């Protein structure tokens, strides 16, 4: 019995240690989540303003259509996949990658029909192991990524679209809904299509352009696409921390529950051993009489 008690005690201690770690990770993720949310928030004015300007320029140059605004027959598709570097975030990466693999299998017959740009160690390892065609990868981004951290890969993906290596480009990432909900989404980045809503607002002003409306548009569109990639990255970071917070929160709850069960077991074992000792003593005293 004493042996059993020591075992239980050791297990309690071990679960307690785990609980301390998950608790700490939960709190760290909560702090990082707040910062990531603020960062995503402060990136919004830039993207909004850019969209507004582009919409009004695009409306003013109906004649000259920029290739980034026009759909062409799709022969090859590019995917820009944003995952995290570290795990322990519940289904954060797994869900995203599962959806991606499923969509790719549904949409394409051969590996020549698509190529992948990947951000984050988890996604890279997963896709590499399965032999998906990866053109470029970025890993080890900081918690508060800067615009220039993502710019090279974004520029390359957008550049290859412009060179007609791809005919469309999808952005695959975890959308941030609220701290406990994230949703893997796939959004078409290029050709740009969601400018219609802003167009009405932009139409009101007639701008002077320098050097010309077409050239301004040609300068702005790639930049806008880069901005969208950056916003997606920030959103993904916020989602990651939200997912980790939730996962670690429930791990902590589970640990608490496990400790309670084990403590109960331990007390039972202790009581049983005391009872046994008592009955042995009583039995021994009786035998002497």
């Amino acid at each position, binding site marked *: 019995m004493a042996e059993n008690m020591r075992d239980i005690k050791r297990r309690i201690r071990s679960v307690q240690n785990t609980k301390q770690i998950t608790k700490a990770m939960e709190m760290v993720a909560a702090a990082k989540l707040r910062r990531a949310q603020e960062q995503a928030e402060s990136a919004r004015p830039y993207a909004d303003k850019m969209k507004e300007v582009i919409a009004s320029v695009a409306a003013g140059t109906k004649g000259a259509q920029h290739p980034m605004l026009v759909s062409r027959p799709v022969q090859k598709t590019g995917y820009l996949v944003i995952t995290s570097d570290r795990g322990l975030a519940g289904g954060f990466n797994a869900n995203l990658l599962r959806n991606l693999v499923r969509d790719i299998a549904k949409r394409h017959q051969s590996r020549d029909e698509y190529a992948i740009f990947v951000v984050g160690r988890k996604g890279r390892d997963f896709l590499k192991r399965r032999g998906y065609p990866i053109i470029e990868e970025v890993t080890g981004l900081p918690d508060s990524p800067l615009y220039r951290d993502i710019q090279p890969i974004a520029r390359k993906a957008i550049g290859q679209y412009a060179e007609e290596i791809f005919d469309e480009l999808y952005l695959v990432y975890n959308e941030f809904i609220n701290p406990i909900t994230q949703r893997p989404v796939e959004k078409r980045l290029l050709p740009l299509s969601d400018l219609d809503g802003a167009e009405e607002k932009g139409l009101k002003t007639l701008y002077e352009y*320098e050097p010309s409306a077409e050239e301004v548009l040609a300068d*702005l569109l790639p930049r806008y696409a880069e901005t969208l990639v950056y916003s997606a990255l920030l959103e993904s970071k916020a989602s990651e921390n939200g997912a980790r917070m939730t996962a670690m929160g429930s791990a902590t709850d589970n640990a608490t529950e496990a400790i309670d069960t084990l403590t109960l077991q331990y007390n039972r074992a202790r009581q049983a051993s005391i009872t046994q000792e008592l009955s042995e003593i009583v039995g021994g005293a009786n035998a002497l009489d």
Partner: protein
Amino acid sequence: MSTMQLDIVTPERKVYSEQVEMVVARALEGDIGILPNHAPFISPLQVTALKVKKDGEEVFIAINGGFMEVHDNRVTILAETAELPGEIDIDRAQAARERAEERLAKDKQEDIDFKRAQLSLQRAMVRIRVGQSR
């Protein structure tokens, strides 16, 4: 003295938001000065030191990869990076300038590298200029 609102925004933050009297920027085809009540106007900007006149004093701001939009007496500059004089590390900019100059002197054949070095030289020089204006 009439003024206009100037906002300088990067993807990371709002760098500058003040009422100013004049903005001088370098558009693709040359310098352009904006005074209050300018007509609606859009142009990409070169890597340049933006000159801002506020309360009679001139402030320089380093702008990289931006464009300017003017309308309703508001000037909005969207840039990939924008730095105020106090935020610039002159020593680092000097070092970047030397590196860029070295690279420019060395390999003139590589087209892309050459362009990149040229750009970083320009950025470094703009930073130094802005940094010294403090």
